């Protein structure tokens, strides 16, 4: 009888221990996602798989391009290739005049890709989408908490005004230099991921640092 009792207590302790551990880990996971960016597990955080593996390194970056094994990519003449260094707002055109940066329509991609790289597998997906007139559904990477509004246009306008200094301490001359403040160095990311929490604390810190209004209705309206 006594042994039975011990086994029960041991079982209870183990169960409580495991349960506590699971609860702690789970709580930690939630808290990390709550205050910062989530751990990259179970499909949270990191970079979601996109319908077309669009590399920002090739388009927006200026660094040397490498393939999946880390070898440099070579052009037709056997020279090493660098990223194109396109301006962010070349594709995300709405960013200086609307709440959203926007993604370019398929047609816009095809302007170049009807001749450029039309034999690459990912570009073929794009061209198929164009031929079949199917919209491309990209997985959202950056997402703000509920009940908050963020207007890109106002932020772009503020930081490109002469005299206004970016949080990094530089003077932004062009709109695209402002983007990396929140989005990080997108040009170095093969797959885009969120680098800042973009939670209320993050917003408010920056607003305070720049003497921007911090009353509720600035963002919650």
């Amino acid at each position, binding site marked *: 009888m006594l042994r039975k009792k011990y086994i029960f207590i041991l079982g209870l302790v183990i169960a409580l221990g495991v349960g506590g551990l699971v609860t702690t880990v789970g709580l930690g996971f939630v808290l990390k996602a709550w205050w910062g960016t989530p751990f990259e597990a179970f499909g949270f955080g990191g970079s979601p798989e996109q319908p077309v593996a669009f590399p920002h390194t090739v388009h927006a970056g200026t660094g040397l391009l490498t393939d999946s094994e880390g070898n440099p990519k070579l052009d037709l003449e056997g020279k090493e290739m660098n990223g194109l260094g396109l301006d962010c*707002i070349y594709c995300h*055109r*709405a960013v200086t005049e609307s709440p959203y940066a*926007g*993604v*370019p*329509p*398929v*047609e*816009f*991609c095809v302007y170049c890709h009807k001749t450029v790289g039309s034999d690459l597998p990912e570009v073929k997906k794009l061209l198929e*989408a*164009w031929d079949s*007139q*199917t*919209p*491309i*559904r*990209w*997985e*959202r990477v950056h*997402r703000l908490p509920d009940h908050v509004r963020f207007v890109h246009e106002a932020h772009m306008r503020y930081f490109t005004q002469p005299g206004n200094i970016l949080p990094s301490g530089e003077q932004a001359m062009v709109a695209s230099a402002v983007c990396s403040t929140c989005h990080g160095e997108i040009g170095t990311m093969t797959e885009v991921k969120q680098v800042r929490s973009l939670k209320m604390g993050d917003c408010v810190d920056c607003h305070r640092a720049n003497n921007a209004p911090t009353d509720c209705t600035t963002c919650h309206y």
Partner: protein
Amino acid sequence: MGLTRRQFLKWSGASALGAVVFNGCNIPSEELQIVSPVEMPEELALGRDNWYATVCGQDAGSGVIVRVVDGRAKKIEGNPDYPTNQGKHSVRSEAGLQALYHPDRLASPKYRSQRSGEFSDISWDEARLILTENLKNENITLITDPLNGHLALLIDEFTKGSGATYKAFSSVEEGNLGNAVQAVFGESRIPDFDIANSKYILSFGADFLSTWQSPVRYSTGYGEFRQGGSVRGTHVHVDSRFSMTAANADDWVPVKPGGEGVLALSIAYVIIRDGLAPSAIVSKLTDGEGSDYLSAFDPANGDVQKATGVDAHRIEDLAHAFVDPSNQPSLAIGGGSAGAHTSGEFNLKAIYALNLLANNLNKVGGVRFNPDSPLESLNSDDVLSKGRAAGLKEWQDLAGAGVGAVVIRGANPSHGLIKDANFTSLMDNASFIATFASSMDETASKSNLVLPELNYLETWGDNIPNPGPGYQTFGLQQPVVTPFNENASSFADEIIKLSENLGLDLVSKLGIDDDKTLHGLIRNGAQELWSQGRGSVKSATFEGFWQGVLQRGGWWDVDATKVSSGTVNAIDASWPTIEFGGEKGEGSDVFHLIPFISNSIADGSLANLPWLQATPDPVTSMTWHAWVEINRETAEEMNIKEADVLELSAGGVTVKGPAYIHPAVPPWTVSMPFGQGHYTGEYSGGVGENVLAVVSSLADKDTGSLAWAATRVKVKNLGNTDGERVPKMEGTVEAYEAEERYILQITGPNGDGKGSH
């Protein structure tokens, strides 16, 4: 284990609640997606524009800004900062886009070993090899459009290194003007005429509001002259054709062709006789003799009236008005047809000497001189001579001397020279002809090798405006777009490559070992400008200076002006020989032919641009043609109706054009625009006929410049069998003389014209 009914309901209720709760917390996956629509939404219009400053390649001396959207040039406007045109621009500048996107632009170099054979497309490497092989050990003759700035320096070094003969080509050259300015003012640069601040302008022949020298600058000044000050300036235009400038003048004096110089000296005679000019200047101009020195030009002299067609009273009035104190400062300008006679240089010297009598040199509202360029290397006479177009005599001498290999760039002498310039025989005798051209023209189609050239919107260059704005100005031309035609090249850079292939030491002489292009040479020049530390752009670093010059379209220093006393030599007072070529016989059907430069297609070099062909002529509203202007009463006498085909013949050659009847054409002249009659080009081919076919081969006896306004033609009406109409913009109502009437009539309260006071 039993499950009671109560327990079952409890569990099922809980799981249903759980399903609702958990599903409600889940966000549907499509709400986490961003959709790229297939087609471009309208509000996402393409087009973020950038404006780049450069200099215009089609209206020399103008600074322009070009709107570039997504890497394509979309619109050309005047550069508001640029000193010469100050934000204004001409129709010729505007049409630069059509030259950039022209369907005729050559897609690749073309070659044929026999000039009778067919062209075949070759690569640039092959073309460079062929060019080098054919120029090696040959006498090279290089013919280009008039050059200026660092390109002139480059070509000067190339001609010196290779021993090449150089000729600048312009279809309607004004060699007489340069000589007259040199003789009267002792200046090698055309001065700046301060039209804006003048009170009285007496112009001879020069269509300065439309095509002559720096028309955009003059037109801007003209607006100020008329409306800018407290007093509206008075303008009298002396011309044997009713040009746009004549139409704008208060008074137009239709002068007998060639009589402009006589008229100017007659005016000078009256001024001197009546003691209305500073005596020191008069004494120098007349060798101390006073008005007797010019007695042959007394307006009362019958010869004066015969040569000018202007009666004595009018000459006296013009002279008195020109020096009238209320009309000061006054200004005399001459050029165009006034200088295109056998007495052309004499005419212009006489006209410009009037400025000495008005004592307006270096004065506001008068003649202001242009200083040398700020870069010493560009001021040598060898470099400046690359901008002076060769006259008829030079072409004849060149053809006579025989040429080896010929390289032509930006010039179309096969169309723009008269037959007696013997350019055809020059081409026939050449061992090899290479032409840099953006499209096939009459000259390129007679070549062995045709090399596609980049447009001025795609290449580096610079321009030192001549005439300048009266102070040092350096215009910078930058590629505002990446080459639209990828298989074209820059003439300057090809010349540098050629010189290397020929083993000439051009690169190190010019100091461009690092950047072996015209860009490198211009940057070196800009370094020198920067080190002077003055002018419109100043910067601590050279890169900052370079960016500033690029952004503004150039560099200028408003304080770098020039004061020149003029030479004030005695006027050439021997009676001029005014000769006429073509038809010798007198008769009611013999007329003076006064060709004129088109406001839009210029001397014909822009004839292939449809916007310019379609731009109505400012006087007649004619488009897309080479028409013949004839006086209304003369036309009635000869039974000529509008659109009747008129045949102008001189010495056995003829040219045809539709009649345009106009009351303001002097009865003794007919007029026809230059520049049409091309047989090549999508838009220029087959449009009108080339008036140069009948222009006789007379030249100024001293300068050898073609006297293109000194031809007399017989006019024959071939009728209008097809019922054609002339391509004009105005309505079907024929032009008529407006009656003299008051624009504003002040009436009294009773309507009787009498005020109450």
